[in-house]
């Protein structure tokens, strides 16, 4: 039976990987449509290779770090990462900052590539490949970090990695079949959910690292998820009212 911690870790990794893969795939598709699949796939493959090297190089080092130091470090990074996503999702849901639109991101990326084509025609394949390399590497680093962070110390690295890979493959295949960015995915809702879960994990890990025995052990994660979710939703409601009042006056 899947433990509570493993279930939460799998869900967080899958949802976070969906979001990151959608963002990376938007850029890969833009490059593929403007310059063809060759530079797009070469850049993306190079990004995946560098990611794999980072995982192979850094993975064994993590075993040498004392558990409480690892818990505090990963906990703080998860708090920074998760609360950054949650903050942004709250502000977007409340209409304070615009929603991230994959269609706009895709249009922006294709426009930029076309402008680059006018300036440096000969170097364009190189620049196009570099764009997909950077997108895959940066979004992939976020996926790798989330996978390592949510599975640390619980012997669930393999299933959590499989969930992340499944999400990435799902997005890649859907995008290739549809041949356009996945703009209809409720990205802000996904970011909200992932922000809530990562913040909860971060809080749990940081406390464990400080030697706090959370009441209910792993069950405390569910309480933290409920508290971050409640706080986030309440903030959206209050901010939306403020925004509506400001708009009306």
């Amino acid at each position, binding site marked *: 039976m899947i433990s509570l911690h493993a279930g939460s870790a799998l869900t967080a990794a899958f949802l976070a990987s969906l979001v990151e893969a959608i963002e990376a795939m938007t850029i890969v598709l833009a490059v593929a449509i403007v310059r063809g699949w060759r530079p797009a796939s070469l850049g993306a493959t190079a990004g995946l290779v560098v990611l794999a090297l980072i995982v192979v190089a850094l993975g064994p080092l993590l075993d040498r770090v004392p558990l409480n130091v690892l818990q*505090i470090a990963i*906990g*703080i*990074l998860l*708090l*920074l*990462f998760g*609360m*950054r996503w*949650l*903050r*942004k999702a*709250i*502000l977007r849901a*409340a*209409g*304070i*900052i*615009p929603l991230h639109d994959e269609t706009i991101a895709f249009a922006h990326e294709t426009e930029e590539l076309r402008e680059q084509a006018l300036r440096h025609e000969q170097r364009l394949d190189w620049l196009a490949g570099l764009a997909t390399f950077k997108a895959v590497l*940066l979004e992939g*680093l*976020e996926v790798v*970090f989330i996978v390592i962070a949510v599975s640390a110390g619980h012997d669930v690295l393999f299933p959590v990695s499989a969930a992340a890979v499944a999400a990435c493959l799902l997005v890649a295949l859907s995008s290739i079949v549809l041949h356009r960015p996945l703009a209809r995915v409720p990205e802000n809702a996904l970011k909200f959910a992932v922000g809530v879960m990562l*913040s909860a994990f971060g*809080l749990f890990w*940081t*406390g464990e690292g*400080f*030697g*706090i*025995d*959370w009441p209910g052990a792993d069950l405390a994660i569910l309480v*933290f998820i409920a*508290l*971050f979710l409640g*706080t*986030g939703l309440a*903030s959206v409601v*209050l*901010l939306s009212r403020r*925004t509506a009042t*400001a708009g009306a006056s």
Partner: protein
Amino acid sequence: MINWTAPLRELVGLFVEDGPLALAIIAIVALAGIVAALAPSAWWLSSSILLFGCLGVLVLNVAMAKRT
């Protein structure tokens, strides 16, 4: 010479987007850590600082955000 500033900035940007929020989180974690180290038996105090501190800085941060 390789310019490491841009990639470093991108890497830091994965975790830090809003400086005040990141600083507030680190301050809350540091305070909870100090309390946990000085008074290990008062786990409820350090855990409350950590939990309600993080929720508090999130609410304060979004409440102060300006529309763009």
